[in-house]
Structure formats: structure tokens, C-alpha cells
């Protein structure tokens, strides 16, 4: 594949549809297909997978012809940091409690921004932690441990 195809908007979208559609159709082979009159659990997803795959082929072919590129840069760094901050929340809430999870999420998410000002982020963390404890733990009475895990 030529290098510029890797930044071709429709080629990438088409590939994504082909992979997802193909996977869906292949996995659906494990489910009974049935007949049109009595559809099994595999009928609908198989049909969808094949349709998605066909759309993908069309979009890919169009991308090769038009050569439209992806607009702007890929923001891998913010994407990675935001993703990590979300995963951290889920990971820490059970194990360390609401307060550590909140602080960790805020710090990692804030690092995804263009500027990271320590003082501001610390202040934000304090305010938001107090706010979420007040609203979610005391106000809405969600049963999460503030500090320390369930285990």
C-alpha cells in the first residue's frame, strides 16, 4: 500500500467497515442461521455484517479514486491520556475509593490539554473532589467507599 493511502480518509473508513463487517459475519457463523421464515440468532447479524462489508468496499474504492486526506493531525496523545484517565477511574474506584479515583482521573485528563498548569489543576482537583463527594456520596447517596476499596 502506498504511504499516502494510510492517511486517506475514505480508504481508512472503508477498511474499518470491512474489518468490522467481516468479523461480525465470521463470528455469526457460530449462531444457528435458520430460514427466512424462522430466523435463527445468526440470520440478522450475518446479513448486517455482509452489508457493512459491502459498504466498506464501496467507501474504500471511492477513497482510492478521490484521494481525500484526513483533515488535521491525529491527536494520539490526548486520545491516549483521556482513555487512560477513564480506565484509571474504573480501576481505582473499587480498589482505592472515590477520592483517589477522582483525583487520578482529573490529573491524567488535564494532562491531555494543551497547557498543564500545576496550581490550577491542583485547585480543580480539590474543588471537583469536594463537589463529587458532596453530590454523589452525600446527595445522591451512591454507595462508593470514599477511601479504601471494597476488598
Amino acid at each position, binding site marked *: 500500500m502506498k504511504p499516502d493511502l494510510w492517511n486517506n*480518509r*475514505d480508504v*481508512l*473508513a472503508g477498511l*474499518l*467497515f470491512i474489518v*468490522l*463487517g467481516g468479523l*461480525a459475519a465470521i463470528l*455469526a457463523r457460530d*449462531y*444457528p442461521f435458520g430460514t*427466512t*421464515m424462522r*430466523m435463527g*440468532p445468526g440470520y*440478522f447479524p450475518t446479513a*448486517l*455484517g455482509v*452489508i*457493512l462489508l459491502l*459498504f*466498506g468496499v*464501496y*467507501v474504500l474504492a*471511492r477513497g482510492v479514486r478521490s484521494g481525500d486526506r*484526513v483533515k*488535521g493531525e*491525529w*491527536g494520539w496523545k*490526548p*486520545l491516549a491520556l*483521556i*482513555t487512560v*484517565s*477513564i*480506565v484509571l*477511574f*474504573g*480501576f481505582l*474506584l473499587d480498589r482505592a475509593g472515590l477520592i483517589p*479515583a*477522582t483525583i487520578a*482521573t*482529573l490529573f491524567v*485528563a*488535564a494532562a*491531555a*490539554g*494543551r*497547557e498543564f*498548569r500545576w496550581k*490550577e489543576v491542583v485547585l*480543580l482537583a480539590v474543588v*471537583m473532589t469536594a463537589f*463529587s463527594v458532596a453530590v*454523589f456520596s452525600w446527595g*445522591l447517596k*451512591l*454507595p462508593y467507599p470514599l477511601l479504601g476499596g471494597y476488598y
Partner: protein
Amino acid sequence: MDLLSNLALGFGVAFSLQNLAYCFAGVALGTLIGVLPGVGPLVTIAMLFPITFHLPAVPAIIMLAGIFYGAQYGGSTTSILVNLPGETASAVTCIDGYQMARRGRAGPALATAALASFFAGCVGTLLIALAGPTLGEWALKFGAAEYTSLMLMALVASAVMTQGDAVKGLAMVVLGLLVGVVGVDVNSGMARYSFGIPELVDGIGFTVVAVGLFAVAEIVANLESREPREVYTGPVTGLMPTARDIRDAAWPTVRGTAVGACFGVLPGTGPALSSFATYMLEKKLARDPSRFGRGAIEGVAAPEAANNAAAQTAFIPMLTLGIPASATMAVMLAALTLQGIATGPQVMLEKPDLFWGLIASMWIGNCLLVVLNLPLVGIWVKLLTVPYRWLFPSIILFCCIGNYSVSNNPFDVYLCAVIGVLGYVLVKLECEPAPLLLGYVLGPLLEENLRRALLIARGDPTVFFTRPLSLVFMIATVLILVVMIAPAARGMRRGT
């Protein structure tokens, strides 16, 4: 009068202290979050959606509706004071609204937007009350075949009418339908696409999909763009429009309401297209079109009326047919389903307190918005100056807490991160996420009706073309697809 007694019932429900409080809370929260730059109505609802989980059905849906039009309203404040189309629906208001603000007429611009929205909201609510029962009675005659073709039509329309590429839109619908397949198949009890993970057997939660696709993906996309925002920071003085303003804005408001009310019912078009269409209409009708883009009050009144009317009438297909016309209505539908309410025409008969209470509360909510917003506009202006670097970590945090609170399971939070990554990639590849959400919500319903229709027809697929009503929907679907292929329509879509 049937209508009057129904409305009386509705106001009885909505005026109870509890429901009034939830309506107020919803409107206030919706405005508060919606006014923040870069946070549109959909993100607001997706984020606040879990709060309503623990409420009974009627207050929950009243509060959600309040959040919705509060956010819509907050968005128009933002578009007048910030030169940034935070969400597509108020992008058009931005053109003339911001110019008015720059000329020191921010006050009248805000007041005009508020009053035009209020007028449109009232008319839209009345239309729901009038059209709802008729449409619902008609829809009671629908069989599985009719529902299947109606859903097909709604999905195709939503894919084709949203901005951007129609073919990708259709692919996104199919992808959404596949996401909806995940979990136990109702007919056979077989777990599909669950990969042996027990959490996936129940299917992918609605909040997970909505928050991941819209909130997370949008934040990452915002972080990467480098456009500086232009915020109007001058004082807002002289709220009241002059007599001339009112005269200039009156007819555009009425016309905007009419256009918006029509567009709102159609699937996929929604507030965004209606505000654009009405702006073009006003520009054509104006004696001096060159004033548009330089602070014409018609350019604020008409689109604001249109997007509010559309936002209201979008409830009609959702409430009467159980078919959402937009991504935001999909959220409402999901909320009703999670409350254990079977959506569709029977809602009106089985839950009249819910249906009429919601309608009455919409009207009350629209009143509250005017009361809440005009005097408090100073506070909203202050909120606009909150820098984005404080906002987005907080939004991420609330999304996490919201997702966790739905099932008290960290798995939902992880899954949301995964969908966020997918959502960001899709945004970069210019695939609209809204059709995906609609497909996801309608997927299980579509499959169930499709299977039932074909079982009844003994496997004969022509059933969709031999039953007259179903045939009408099928013809409409084909027409929509033909319009999509026609080059003229393609050019029009590109213009939006």
C-alpha cells in the same frame, strides 16, 4: 373536549410539587451545562442521563426533557456570545447573533432568541398535544411488517439527511445495528458477540455508547484543534428589544416556527437542518439581504424559533410511534425503555399521566426558561469565560461516575473508554456518529419486528410490499435513497 380534559390531567401531573421541582432542576442543569462552550445538548443529556436513573418514570422523563431544552437554550446563548458554533443546531444563530453582540446589542439578541424560542416551544408543544393522539391511534393498527418498514425508513432517512457522506451514514447505521445485536437474543436465548464476558451478555449499556461516542470522542477532537475562541466579554446591557426589533422579528419567528415544526417530525433532519433552511428562507424574503451576516435580528429570531420548534415536534414520532427522529430522541427513548415503559402508540393509552404530564411540563419548562434566563443572563455570561482546560477534565470525571453508577461495575467504564476511541477514529474519518446511535437503539426492535413479520408471512419477503401502509413506507425509503443519489440534493447537503 377530549384535548382539554387531557391537558387538565397533564397539568395536574406536572404541577405537583415533585414534578415541578424536577422540571426546574432539569431546565436549570441543562442550561448550566449547555451554556458551557463546546458542550452541546447531546453531550449534556448523555452526561446527566444517569442522574434520572433512580427516579420514578414520570419525574425522570420530565427532568430529561427539561435538560434537553435547557441545553438547547443554553447553546443559543453560547452561540450569540461566543463566535464558535459549539453545536450544529445553533451554528446559524452564531452568524448574526455574534455580530449583534459585537455591536453592543447582545441584550436584545439574547432576549429575541429567548422570546422566539418560547413562542416556538409553545406552538411545538401544542402540536404534540394535537397530533399525538391522532397519530397514535393510527399507529395502533401497525403490524410487525409496518413497524419494520417504518424503522427502515427512519434509519435510512437519518443516515442520508445528516450532514456529511450519505453512504458512510448508512454504513454507520448498520454498524449501530450490529452494536445493538450484542447480548442475549430474545427469541433463542443465545448470547451473541459476548466473547465469554458476562457483562456483555446483557448487551452494551446505552450510557456507555452515548457518552463514549459523543462526550469522550468530542472532547478529544476539541483538544486537538487549535482554533482560538473569540468570546464576547463586554457587559450585556439593555435587555429589552426595541419596538422596531419586535416588528422585524415577529414574522421571521412565525415562519421559523412553521419550518422547524415540519422538519422536526422528519427523521434525521432535526434542529440543525431546520435552522439552516429557515435562515436561507429569511435571506431570500428580506428586502435587503446584505444585512444578513452583519447583525440582522431576523437572522437570530428565525433560526432560534426553528430549532426550538423542531426540538419539540421531534417528540411526536418518539412518543407516538416509539421511533426516535434524532440522536437526542434516541436518548429519551432509551430512558423510557430503561424505566420499563414499552414505547409506542400504547404509551398514551396505558400511561396518560406520563404522556400528558410530559406535554404540560414542556410548556412549564419553556416558561421557566424565559424566567430563568433573561434576568440571570449575567451569570451565564460569566460561565462562558470558564476556560476549556478546566471544563474537559470535569466532564470526563462526570462521565466516568455516571457510567459507573448505572451498574456499579467498572466494566462499563472500561467499555466506554473503548467506544470513545472508536468514536474519535470515526470522527476523524468524517463518519457521523448520530446514525450509529439511532441504529443501536432501534436494532433490537428492528430485528424482533422483522422476524415476527416474516414468521407471520411464512417467510415471504414480499409482505413488506403487499401491505399498503408498509408499501408506502418502502416507497418513501426508496425515494429518500434516490434523492440522495441525485446530484442536486448532494450539492444542497454540502451547503449545510
